[in-house]
């Protein structure tokens, strides 16, 4: 009896949480396959009848979404790659070398993260404009680096700290250089951390709206989140297309998560306890 009550006590909040978290996605997925008329019925119609691919055709062939998809892909991959490269070196430095002001610097890295996005948009715009990087891939990639690098450095620092110092000592005695130790010993051992950072950085960039809105004003450079807003016009919102486009936008992320789920969760945990 007590056991059953306990199970209920745990599973009920979990169930509520899952419903709250998953419902919008399910609603989006289901709506993407509905004809226009069924999107507005009251009471709501739960399942499309019959399901239609009209919204997807609309999105793929009659909108700029494919182009935005490619833009998002290039910018997200580029920024994630750069963030990873910088984060690996920075985090390794923070984790392994004793230098003056190390803890202050590590704390300072996070300060950028604490500033409200709105406060950095204008200065960033001025800088990017000066460098001629508005409406360029490189401009957006660099901007997103600001967004993802701090947390990436923090996460990886925890992972690197989790590697026993003796392993690196052993490699040094075996004749490895400092860089050799990093690439041959430490980096393979923080693979879960690399995966966690990659996912975090990719998803954060992929979903970002405000920077993209401010720094990618031309049609050729817009990213998916901005593209979604284009279905809303002054007079009308094509909700079917929005849902279909959202579905397309969610797909890569969902796929990556499904494939790497185990490693991602494991990675986050081990970093937390060992860091």
């Amino acid at each position, binding site marked *: 009896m007590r056991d059953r009550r306990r199970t209920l006590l745990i599973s009920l909040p979990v169930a509520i949480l899952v419903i709250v978290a998953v419902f919008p996605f399910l609603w989006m997925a289901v709506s993407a396959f509905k004809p226009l008329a069924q999107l507005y019925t009251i009471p709501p119609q739960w399942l499309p009848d019959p399901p239609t691919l009209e919204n997807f055709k609309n999105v793929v062939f009659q909108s700029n979404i494919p182009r935005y998809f490619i833009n998002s892909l290039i910018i997200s991959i580029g920024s994630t790659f750069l963030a990873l490269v910088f984060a690996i070196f920075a985090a390794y430095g923070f984790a392994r070398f004793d230098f003056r002001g190390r803890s202050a610097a590590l704390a300072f890295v996070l300060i950028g993260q604490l500033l409200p996005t709105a406060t950095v948009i204008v200065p960033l715009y001025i800088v990017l404009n000066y460098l001629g990087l508005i409406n360029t891939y490189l401009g957006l990639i660099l901007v997103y680096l600001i967004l993802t690098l701090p947390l990436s450095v923090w996460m990886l620092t925890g992972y690197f700290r989790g590697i*026993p110092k*003796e*392993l690196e*000592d*052993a*490699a*040094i*005695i*075996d*004749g*490895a250089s400092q860089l*050799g130790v990093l690439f*041959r*010993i430490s980096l*393979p*051992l923080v693979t879960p951390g690399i995966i966690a950072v990659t996912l975090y950085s990719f998803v954060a960039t992929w979903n970002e709206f405000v920077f993209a809105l401010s720094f990618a004003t031309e049609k050729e450079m817009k990213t998916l989140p901005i593209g979604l807003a284009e279905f809303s016009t002054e007079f009308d919102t094509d909700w079917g297309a929005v849902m279909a486009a959202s579905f397309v936008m969610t797909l890569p992320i969902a796929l990556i998560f499904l494939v790497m789920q185990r490693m991602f969760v494991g990675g986050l945990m081990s970093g937390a306890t060992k860091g």
Partner: protein
Amino acid sequence: MAQVALNGLVKRYGAYQALHEVDMTVEDGEFVVLVGPSGCGKSTLLRMIAGLEEISDGTISIDGRIVNTVRPKERDIAMVFQSYALYPHMTVRKNMSFALKLAGTAQSEIDKAVERAASILGLEPLLDRKPKQLSGGQRQRVAMGRAIVRNPRVFLFDEPLSNLDAKLRVQMRAEIKELHQRLGATTVYVTHDQIEAMTMADKIVVMRDGHIEQMGHPLDLYDRPANRFVAGFIGSPAMNFIDGRIDGSGTTCFVASDGTTIPISGRPGLSKGVETVLAIRPEDLTIVPENHSGAFPALVSVVESTGPETIVILASCGTRLSVVVKERSHLKIGEKVWLHAEPEKMHFFESTGDGCRMNI
């Protein structure tokens, strides 16, 4: 193989001094054990020989060449760590060949060296396993294999057995000793376990607070400890210490702080009235009948039987004494017994300062 010489070696961490002018020589092919309580600087010393710690002052030379600024890989040393430090993402074979690969050795030679080391240590069936698939003892062996493969001039061991269970430790102790006899390599071995030190070393170096307390052949340290610290550290159960003074009314005797009198005739040179510490090893104390000459009384407080011998802890002379008895004991707690020690088995230490041995 090589000779390792340390001259006036100092290690400072900011204001804290971890090593104080250490002088020591490890002869070619010698097995030297650094032993001492944790924090005594023995591991720091080893890491300095390895090149993993900077040298604050003094020199380290290998075969006459000062290596203070020589990088670890150019010192031609191999080190076995307490945690084994095996690379978890590599197989045993890759772990063992890592150093040779970095040195650019030809693959055929690497294979040969790995096979040879594996056969010495009985690792052949494990070569393609990852470290996590090995038991503690096997990991230990791989760690040694990784050291042997390189055929280094000096082997360094940093408490390699402390993660193993008692039985395996005894077995690996013998294996390391055997390996040393077979390879004849100059070896520096760090441990806090005095039994390991006694059983393995050609020469023991006892350290405390960054100083060398005594250095010498294991049995010399056992028989003639230089001070009270070494006397108490070497030997298990630890040596008994009794505070008191020399009294000379009639025959010379030692009077403990509680007034118990122990005759020490045959040990001339102790002047009357001198405050001193009498030290007797537990195996040098015997339980005797009351009428035995020179016997002094004691009360049994604990009896610990280990099988082959019994350790009896007694209250006597204002302190607790332990006695090792070879035969089965039927002593009862609280029983009054009489103890005796041969005067020539007694040690005397100064009761002040470092408790130096009184040379008599």
